[in-house]
């Protein structure tokens, strides 16, 4: 463990009976960085996070968090946690719930709580039972940030938040990072984390298959340009980043590696009626990365 590590996992393994949920994970999250922990659903992200919080105990290997053990109360006092599956008692009001979680941490900074409530437009007097899923998530977000944590562990944080709130949430993450907070952010979709993450690790079937800067793992994007008229032949040939071009009448389908800037500029010469972007799912991105030099997928598929 180095002095600059916020989280260190060494050969961290968790088995449930015959199932290996997390397999010998070695990973270091540096202090002050935003680490995107990606992987399809069921890859072992939540299991890993639960080992970082002493909800689950590793079958073998170790996890160290903020230079201590995950079960150490003084360590947990410095962690803000937003679970993927948030279950709040429906009988409480928003204020009661937040005050309760604050009391467990020796009291939240009330002015910060009030600022967050205003920012996320949440009425503290409302009963949790009457809130929409999105509004309940806000309670989770507020309790995670309100304790001035040194480390934020956020499990699928933006699921259930509408785009506007996702944006607000990511701004909040950015502000925290500016204050020196380390963020460990899990997600099954890349766009959720690519705005804020410095580094990304991709987990698949409990194994870390890729680790790198955000640009290393940014996947290819598929774009369909619906044009007013059939494009002139070769209009999209030889453009930076374009890997594949298919033209079907007025529709140009492109597979772009990296920035789409050159494509947009090339398209600007034509009349574009509609741009359809297909979310490249992480599984595809991962498969691209995991292809061995010979072009074969060497994974267990």
């Amino acid at each position, binding site marked *: 463990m180095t002095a600059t590590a916020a989280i260190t996992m060494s050969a961290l393994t968790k088995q449930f009976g015959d199932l290996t949920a997390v397999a010998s994970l070695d990973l270091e999250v540096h202090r002050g960085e935003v680490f995107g922990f990606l992987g399809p659903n069921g890859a072992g992200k939540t299991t890993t996070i639960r080992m970082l919080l002493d909800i689950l105990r590793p079958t073998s290997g170790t996890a160290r968090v903020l230079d201590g053990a995950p079960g150490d109360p003084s360590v947990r006092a410095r*962690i803000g946690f937003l679970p993927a*599956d948030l*279950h*709040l008692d429906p009988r409480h009001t928003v204020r009661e719930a937040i005050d309760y979680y604050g009391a*467990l941490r020796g009291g939240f900074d009330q002015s910060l709580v009030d600022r967050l409530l205003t920012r996320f437009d949440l009425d503290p007097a409302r009963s949790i039972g009457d809130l929409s899923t999105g509004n309940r998530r806000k309670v989770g977000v507020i309790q995670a940030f309100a304790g001035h944590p040194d480390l934020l562990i956020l499990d699928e944080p933006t699921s259930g938040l509408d785009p506007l709130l996702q944006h607000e949430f990511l701004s909040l993450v950015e502000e925290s990072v500016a204050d020196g907070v380390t963020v460990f952010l899990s997600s099954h979709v890349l766009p959720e984390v690519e705005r804020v993450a410095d580094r990304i690790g991709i987990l698949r079937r409990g194994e870390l298959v890729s680790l790198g800067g955000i640009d290393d793992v940014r996947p290819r994007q598929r774009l369909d340009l619906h044009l007013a008229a059939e494009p002139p032949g070769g209009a999209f040939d030889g453009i930076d980043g374009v890997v594949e071009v298919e033209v079907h009448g007025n529709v140009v389908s492109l597979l772009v590696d990296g920035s789409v800037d050159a494509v947009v500029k090339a398209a600007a010469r034509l009349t574009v009626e509609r741009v359809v972007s297909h979310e490249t799912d992480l599984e595809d991105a991962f498969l691209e990365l995991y292809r061995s030099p010979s072009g074969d997928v060497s994974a267990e598929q």
Partner: protein
Amino acid sequence: MLRRLLLDRRRGALWWSIGTSSGVATIVALWSSVKNSADLEDVIKNLPKGVQALFGTEKGISISSAPGYLQARLFSTILPVLLLVYAIGLGARIIGGAEEDGTLQLVVTSPATRRRIAIERFGAAKLLVLLQVVIGLVTGIAIGAAVGVFDDISVGRFVIATLAVTELALLHLTIAFAVGAATGRRGPALSAASIVAVAGYVIYGIAASAHSLEPLRVVSPWWWFLDRNLLVHGPTFLSLGLPLVLAAAIFVAGLVAYERRDLRLP
């Protein structure tokens, strides 16, 4: 944390208090109409021995006397049933139910240790049971005094008998807590404690009905409590000491299991 569980349960506690006080009040008030009635005596005498035992009757203590009547109608039936049902439901909730529905998630990830969580929540549940006891006791003493129950028995004995029912209830609360803490599930906690309660009651009745089955009764918490009419004989170790010791051991076992296992959050 202790306060939270108390507050969360305040509505249930209020409703249950109404049940406890009206139940106890009715039974104790009826004493005045049963007093010295020979009819009831005859009815009881004709019942099978096992059923007599379940009524808490004891040789030489008339059902129409204050201690006989209270033992039969209050201390061996209504009061333990009220307290046990309440305690078992509550005990299963302490860890098992709250872990299963996920409301414990942000608590177990807070700086509170599992030990503190278990101790505080168990303490809160215990207080809630004691609240019902106090309500039952106050009602019983007030109504009892009005109908002349305490002409025959002392208030002290009444308190001792109530204490013994309380320990019986707390024993089952602890079983429900421990199984919930060990499994993280409400169902097994409820079942285990309910099975112990019902089986204990049935074994006590069966053991009294046939001489050859008598040795069985030693495993029944109901026998510890009902064997000797505490209103007549005063405190016994079986009724007041044993449940306490046993509950303490079960609590520790539940706590240790809870501290060691993986949590099963949804």
